[in-house]
Structures are given as C-alpha cells and as structure tokens.
C-alpha cells in the first residue's frame, strides 16, 4: 500500500554564501539521511529539482538554471518543500578515499562529517570556488586541487590521485562533473579496482521515486533516483556514463 509522501514544507533558517555561485540553505527540519542521499527540492511556483543533502537539515546549491536561480532569491524565513531522502547513498567499507569536484563535494561532505573518510581530494576551478575545505581539513587528510593553481595542487583531482596508491583504499567515493568522474573511473579500471569506486551520478529527474523513468541510464535501464544515485564503477563502466545523458523530454544530449 503506497504511503503518502507529500513534500515536507520547511522554513529556511540560514543562507550561507559558500562561493559566488554556491549557497547553503539550512532549514528547520532534520531528515534522517545516509550520506549520498538526495532530496527533491520544491521551489514553489518554479520547479522541483534533485539536490544532495549537505547536512541532515541543509542543502548546498550551485546556481545553474532557473530553479536554482529562484532558490538563490530565497531568504531566511522563506519556505521550500523537501521530498526525501531518496536513493541509496554511499556504502563504504574499510579505508575510504573521497574525491569531490565543484558542487559534487556536497554528498561526500556528509560522509566525511560522519568520520567515514580517510583521505579527501577536493577539486575546484579556482580557490574561491572551493567548498567545505576548512571543515574537511578538520576531519580528513585533505588534498586540494585547483585548475588554475590558486590553491593546492595545480591541476585536476586526477593529478593528485595519480600521486597516491589508489589500491590502498577499499572504497573510493566520487562525485563531481562527469568528465572528472570518468578520469577517475579510467584510473580505477586500469588498476582493476573499479568495483571499489562508488560514483554518485547526476541525471535529469522528474519523480525522484523510480516511477517516471526520466533518469534511467543506458544500457541496463537502472534508475539513478532509486537504484542509485551511487553506482559502483563496474556497473557504470559499460553504461552511458561519460557518453550521453537525456534532457527533460527524454532526448539524448
């Protein structure tokens, strides 16, 4: 029997400017999340979009389209709707390496905050776009990469990965731009440890609960919202991952 899951209507209690294009919205309700789970965020009158939890009572959002732009206009006291938590989340074991790029740090941040990450490679285009760096430095062995070299390693996160022995880690949790994740997957495959990689995928989503099919990935037809969003490298190595994705109409993009 289907249970009712109307959006929880929460009030924003704090808006934190993380970077010029990233804000954290803290709200007045705690959700029982596992790191890597997401929610559907309802911006009334605009749209509903998937967003990783950055805390049990917060989401951290990059301004990328109409809905996030509308979200960015919201202030303390404004209301949004939250459906979730949804998806499987990360399921790490043993020694854990996390690799996050850009806004992709968000789901990994909750993992690290829970003490589940040993080494964290954090990447961004430039120093001022790094998110959660200070907090992560407190709870993990943090290594930073910036594309322009304004902080840490000058280059991509994969450059740092190449300096490590990835086989020392039992689980490698990854979230970021798909091309970045592809670079990491390739390296894990090269070492024969792609099944240790846990990649959090982002796809266009409508329902968030595994019914509508908008976020299904080729070639197995897995639902990113319900079977994912976290998939091991062996699952996605022969998928559409890093090849194509689909837009709102279902057209390949």
């Amino acid at each position, binding site marked *: 029997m289907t249970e009712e899951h109307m959006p929880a209507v929460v009030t924003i209690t704090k808006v934190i400017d993380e970077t010029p294009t990233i804000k954290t919205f803290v709200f007045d309700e705690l959700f029982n999340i596992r790191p890597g789970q997401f929610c559907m965020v*309802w911006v009334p*009158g605009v*749209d*509903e979009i998937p967003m990783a939890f950055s805390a049990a009572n917060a989401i951290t959002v990059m301004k990328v389209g109409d809905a996030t732009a509308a979200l960015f206009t919201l202030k303390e006291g404004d209301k949004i*709707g939250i459906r979730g938590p949804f998806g499987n989340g990360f399921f790490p074991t043993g020694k854990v390496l996390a690799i996050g790029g850009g806004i992709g740090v968000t789901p990994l941040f909750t993992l690290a905050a829970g003490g589940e990450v040993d080494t964290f490679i954090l990447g961004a285009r430039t120093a001022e776009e790094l998110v959660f760096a200070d907090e992560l430095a407190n709870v993990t062995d943090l290594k930073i990469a910036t594309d322009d070299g304004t902080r840490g390693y000058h280059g991509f996160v994969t450059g740092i990965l190449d300096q490590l022995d990835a086989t020392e880690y039992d689980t490698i949790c990854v979230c970021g731009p798909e091309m970045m994740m592809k670079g990491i997957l390739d390296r894990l495959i090269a070492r024969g440890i792609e099944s240790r990689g846990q990649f959090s995928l982002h796809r266009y989503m*409508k329902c968030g609960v595994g*019914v*509508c099919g908008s976020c299904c990935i080729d070639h197995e037809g897995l639902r990113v919202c319900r079977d994912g969003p976290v998939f091991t490298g062996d699952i996605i190595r022969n998928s559409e991952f890093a090849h194509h994705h689909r837009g709102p109409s279902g057209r390949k993009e």
Partner: protein
Amino acid sequence: MIKLQTPTEKIGGVPLTNHMLLAAGVLGTTAASLSRMLRLGAGGVITKSIGPEPKDGHHGPSLIPVSGGILNAMGLPNPSQEFTGEIAPLLAENAPVVISIFGGTPAEFAKVAGWFPDAPAFELNLSCPHAEGYGAAIGANPRVVRECTEAVKAFGKPVWVKLTPNVADIGVIGRAAEEGGADAIVAINTVKAMRISTGMRRPVLGNKFGGLSGTAVFPIAVRAVYDLYEACTIPVIGCGGISTADNVLEMMMAGAAAVEIGSAVYDNINVFADIAEDLYAPNGIPAGELVGCAHD
C-alpha cells in the same frame, strides 16, 4: 487460488509472453528501461506517449505518492520523432512493445504513427487528464476518438485505445473506438485529481491538476472494464491499481483479456515477476475461461 496458463494467442493483435504489460508513462522513456522491465517479467511494455513535437513536460513537482496511490502531472514529456532511434533496437528484437502515441487531432496521431513502421502495435493516449488540447481533453468526445482511431488504424497495425474514466459513460467512448477500428480498449488512464500542500497553501503539482493512479483507483478501473466488456466486442485491457495476482484475476473476471501495471512498480520493481509466480502454473487454466465470467 486460480492458476493460469500464459497466453497462447495474440491479445489485441499483440503477442505477449504473459498477461501483464508495463503501463504507458512508467519507466517507458528509454529502450533500456523498457528492456529491463521485460527482463523483470513484464509480458509486454507500452512506451512513454510520443507526440508530434518534443515536450519537456510540466514543471515539478510532477509526481507525488499519496495515500494508496500516485498523483502525477508529467505533462507528456517526450522526444517526439527522435524516439524512433531510441526504440529501434528493441523493435529490432521483436520485443512485445506497444508504442503509445498522442496528438491533438487525427492528423497528428497519424503523423506520429507514421514514424514507427516497425511498431508491433499502437496505444492511443486519448486519456491523459492534465494536458491541454490532448488526452482526455479530446478523449471525452466520441467522434474525435473514432476519427483518431481510424487515422492510426490506416497503418494496418493493431491499435489499442486508452480511455479516460473522467466521463459520465465510458461505454460510449469505448464503442467509438471500436467503430474506428480499434483492436483493443485500454481502461483506465488516471482519474482527475489534485492535492494541496497545506504547508505551502498551493497545489502540490507544478501543473496544479493531475491524475490519480494506484490502489486507490482499482475499484474505479474494475467498474470501467466491466462496463466496457458489456459495451464492446473487442478485447479490453484492464489498467488501474493492479498490484497482486488476485487483482489480475479480478480484472479478468470483469472482462479484461490482459492487464497493464504501472504505479505498483513504485512499491515493488519486481511486481511483474512476483505476480507471475502467484498467477501461473504449468497446469493452469486458459485465461479465456475467466475473462468476463463475473458477467454470467
């Protein structure tokens, strides 16, 4: 419980491996997910409805689980003609795929149908309750239903017509489809519905209005199938709130030659295989012995 044989003949002109199809609009956007549902036990699959132009669909929220059902207003998102490439590999395998199509006029239906010369069959969406100028907006008019059916039937393939329950007499619409040459009638699409977020003081769906599916509408669907079985002579495909083998039997007794299952995948992605395990046995009876038996 009564046990059945799997189908030995085509139903509504379509060769099905069992009596349960994946309903339109559920996990039907990609060939990969349709293929997965076939692997997970569906006897056939209906695609997402394809229309004459690409559509992104309504703004969200577009689907909300409610008590005993699912409320949705997807807004007929579809890639239009590009879907021909999407579905080609599955059609090439001779998979039991029914292409769901929609349009605002008979000509639009014909245009879309013409893109799929390899389709085993079409299902006409004359019943979506929340798409202006499409679906139920035209599917409540018997003449339009007949003309749309005729327009697609001209391609010489099996045509199923999916009806809306949001009419005073569904039998009238069913007969119109039959007169238009339909090979089967599918009932029901979702029931017009709405929920309001009291916390937000506004309708929860981006489109405000939507349609209700799931267990909640099962008794409404049984009634529609029963009515259509009396009103029409072509097969009826039962759809609406089916989630158990007993539900399948009940639909058959009401008059359904086969069923479609959609919302039940929300609670259980393995619903087809699970039902099949309960429903079929090597010494099962032919479904034909049950179809419509509640009318005796």
